[in-house]
């Protein structure tokens, strides 16, 4: 059985290859709990973003008499497909009522302070090619998810380092980083530090 400083080194947490001691596992659990609701939101968002490239194909355009409209920048845009469902808003692919133009519009609930100030519909992207627009938005959304994952790591780090400084918080954070990055489709490749061996060359230098 592998042991480090007298403790069994064996626990592997989901989404990580790092082995944690029982003390480190406690630190991991506490740090991860601090980000757990947002981590669930992140995973749920990632699942939707993964499906984005297919969304436009799966959702046929609504017939003109059933189409929903969204006002943004003084235009009544026609909703074509719902791209993302967020906890407090939705992102939709919309079409200009008269011109060959598409827009990615985020729709907020009317009672939110943001909507009261900026309107219920906010245009994120505009273009003539709906497929290209959705692809561009998918890249943008993926970037936001990476940003979200990195922010969760920083949040968890605060708990690990402040509350468990004696349990190798760096190792704990490596496990959390791996899990968060994996959730947004990335892997963290951390090279183990190469042990430098000192060669005492005698005579001819090597």
């Amino acid at each position, binding site marked *: 059985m592998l042991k480090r400083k007298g403790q069994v080194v064996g626990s592997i947490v989901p989404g990580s290859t790092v082995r944690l001691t029982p003390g480190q596992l406690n630190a991991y659990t506490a740090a991860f709990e601090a980000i757990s609701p947002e981590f669930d939101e992140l995973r749920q968002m990632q699942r939707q973003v993964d499906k984005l490239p297919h969304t436009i194909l799966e959702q046929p355009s609504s017939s003109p008499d059933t189409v929903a409209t969204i006002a943004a920048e003084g235009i009544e845009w026609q909703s074509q497909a719902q791209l993302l469902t967020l906890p407090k808003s939705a992102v939709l692919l919309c079409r200009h009522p008269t011109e060959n133009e598409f827009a990615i519009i985020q729709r907020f609930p009317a009672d939110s302070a943001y909507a009261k100030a900026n309107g219920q519909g906010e245009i994120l992207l505009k273009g003539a090619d709906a497929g290209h627009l959705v692809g561009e938005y998918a890249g943008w959304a993926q970037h936001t998810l990476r940003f979200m994952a990195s922010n969760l790591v920083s*949040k968890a780090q605060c708990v690990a380092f402040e509350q468990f400084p004696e349990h190798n918080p760096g190792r704990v954070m490596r496990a959390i980083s791996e899990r968060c990055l994996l959730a947004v489709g990335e892997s963290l490749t951390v090279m183990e530090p190469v042990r430098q061996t000192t060669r005492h060359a005698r005579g001819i230098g090597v």
Partner: protein
Amino acid sequence: MASSPPVMNEERQQNQPSTGDTMASTSVQLTVSEAAYTIGVDSFTILGLIQRGKLKPARSPSGEIMVPKGELIRLIEKGR
């Protein structure tokens, strides 16, 4: 997903000196989820606003993104 209001930490103050803002509360910094709750959006939207340059963030000592309350007020007032 139902979300409960995050607990605001009124003690967190912005590191930068005030830029003439007379509202004491504007120097308070909020986490991303607190900021989202305050203006009725989600965390994803707050991070998107930061990426698009509509919100200027700060950082906590651990590197966590913080949103100065004054920035939120500016964002809402600018839209009106």
